[in-house]
């Protein structure tokens, strides 16, 4: 029988391990313990979990190139190769890359993908499309159960109820989420929407991880209509945010960004309506005034105008004539009255009334004005106020003789 030497057996095992393609290039995650940098500059420690431990080495040359080095009690993700250390009789993990596990790992994958897509130009400002001002059909890609959907619909119902929402429900977290999101984006695009809201409420970085998936990023970039991404809270940035046409801090904000405010628009429409009415009224007024001016000018040159002017003048003359006649008549009547009064004053009756008598010769009826008009024996007639009597002249003489 052929017995191996200890060294030969160790070498054999070492050869088997080193020939294995998996073990030559392997990622391992675990908690670090017994970590101690040696005086030589190499690092020795143990990675462990609940069931096993793994001896690890970081050569001085590798350690110098690493930005992160292991520390006791923390979980790390490491890369390296497995081999045998013959002198100690054990296999070891020779580490050439070390990073904090969990968050650190996700963060680095995020940064790596972000850098790659940025390099490709997927985030370029020139790729961003403007949002439609008044979308009548809005696509929503989110979970049917999530509060995000209700938030979005509340905002849309308040601001822009004229729109119709087309919902493509999808998982928004977990391993199946990225493929579902990709399919949902394609489905709403086929439904003829004018803009897409890709939304998810807040959560841990792991919860939001589907929105950092490269498939999702490429589906957003390929979407035929603009995509507004509202994922998580204001502080959360995902790859989807960077590649979307517009990034909204929350699902509600995304809904606000894609819609006009119907109340403002109602005011704007009312304003247009008012201006419409006012301007047409102004125009009609203008035409009416122009027409009036023409009509006025026409009247100035029309024959009817001259005839009416003459008629007016005649009327005026006739009125003046009437007034003049009346004035004359009034004067004549006043004159007549005066004369009548004067006539009455001069009448013999008034004299007789004062006691005077009128004497006339009986012979010829001539008035006796002087003593020469009569001789003694003449018959005379004496008139007094209430009648007359006959008398005879019996003598005569001058007054005051």
């Amino acid at each position, binding site marked *: 029988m052929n017995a191996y030497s200890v060294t030969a057996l160790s070498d054999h095992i070492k050869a088997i391990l080193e020939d294995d393609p998996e073990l030559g290039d392997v990622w391992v995650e675990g908690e670090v313990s017994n970590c101690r940098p040696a005086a030589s500059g190499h690092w020795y420690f143990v990675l462990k979990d609940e069931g096993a431990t793994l001896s690890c080495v970081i050569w001085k040359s590798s350690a110098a190139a690493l930005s992160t080095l292991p520390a006791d009690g923390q979980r790390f993700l490491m890369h390296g190769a497995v081999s045998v250390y013959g002198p100690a009789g054990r296999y070891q993990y020779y580490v050439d890359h070390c990073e904090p596990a969990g968050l650190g790992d996700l963060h680095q994958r995020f940064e790596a993908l972000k850098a790659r897509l940025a390099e490709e130009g997927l985030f370029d400002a020139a790729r961003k499309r403007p949002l439609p001002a008044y979308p009548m059909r809005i696509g929503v890609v989110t979970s049917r159960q999530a509060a995000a959907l209700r938030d979005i619909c509340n905002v849309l119902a308040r601001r822009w109820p*004229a729109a119709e929402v087309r919902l493509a*429900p999808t998982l928004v977290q977990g391993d199946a989420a990225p493929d579902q999101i990709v399919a949902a984006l394609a489905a709403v695009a*086929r439904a003829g929407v004018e803009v897409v809201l890709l939304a998810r409420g807040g959560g841990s970085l792991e919860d939001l991880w589907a929105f950092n998936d490269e498939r999702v990023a490429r589906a957003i970039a390929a979407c035929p209509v603009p995509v507004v991404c509202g994922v998580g809270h204001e502080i959360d940035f995902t790859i989807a945010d960077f590649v979307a046409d517009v990034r909204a801090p929350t699902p509600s904000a995304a809904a606000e960004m894609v819609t006009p405010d119907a109340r403002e628009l109602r005011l704007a429409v009312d304003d247009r309506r008012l201006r419409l009415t006012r301007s047409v009224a102004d125009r009609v007024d203008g035409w009416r005034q122009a027409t009036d001016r023409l009509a006025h000018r026409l009247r100035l040159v029309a024959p009817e105008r001259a005839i009416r002017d003459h008629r007016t003048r005649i009327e005026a003359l006739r009125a003046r004539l009437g007034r003049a006649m009346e004035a004359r008549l009034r004067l004549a009547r006043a004159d007549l009255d005066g004369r009548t009064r004067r006539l009455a004053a001069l009448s013999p009756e008034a004299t007789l009334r004062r006691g005077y008598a009128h004497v006339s010769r009986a012979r010829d009826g001539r008035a006796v004005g002087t003593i020469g008009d009569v001789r003694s024996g003449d018959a005379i007639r004496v008139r007094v106020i209430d009648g007359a009597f006959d008398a005879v002249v019996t003598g005569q003489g001058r007054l005051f003789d």
Partner: protein
Amino acid sequence: MGKGAAAGMAGKDVAELGFEQAYRALDEAVARLESDDMTLDASLALYERGAALAERCAALLAAAELRVREVDGEGRDAGPVDLE
């Protein structure tokens, strides 16, 4: 009458316009009526069209309730969504 006026008059039936088209056309009608030189007949016709456009806009804005409908994988209508 200008080229814009002819295009505005011969436009689609107002009742079939979406909000954006109706609102833009309304804006244009107002602007033209406020500034352009046109015949009385043209301005009255433009006014009538503008009034109809304003009615259309107001009717679209008065829509009572947001409609939410689900789509299937092909983008086809899969019924209303109950938001409870």
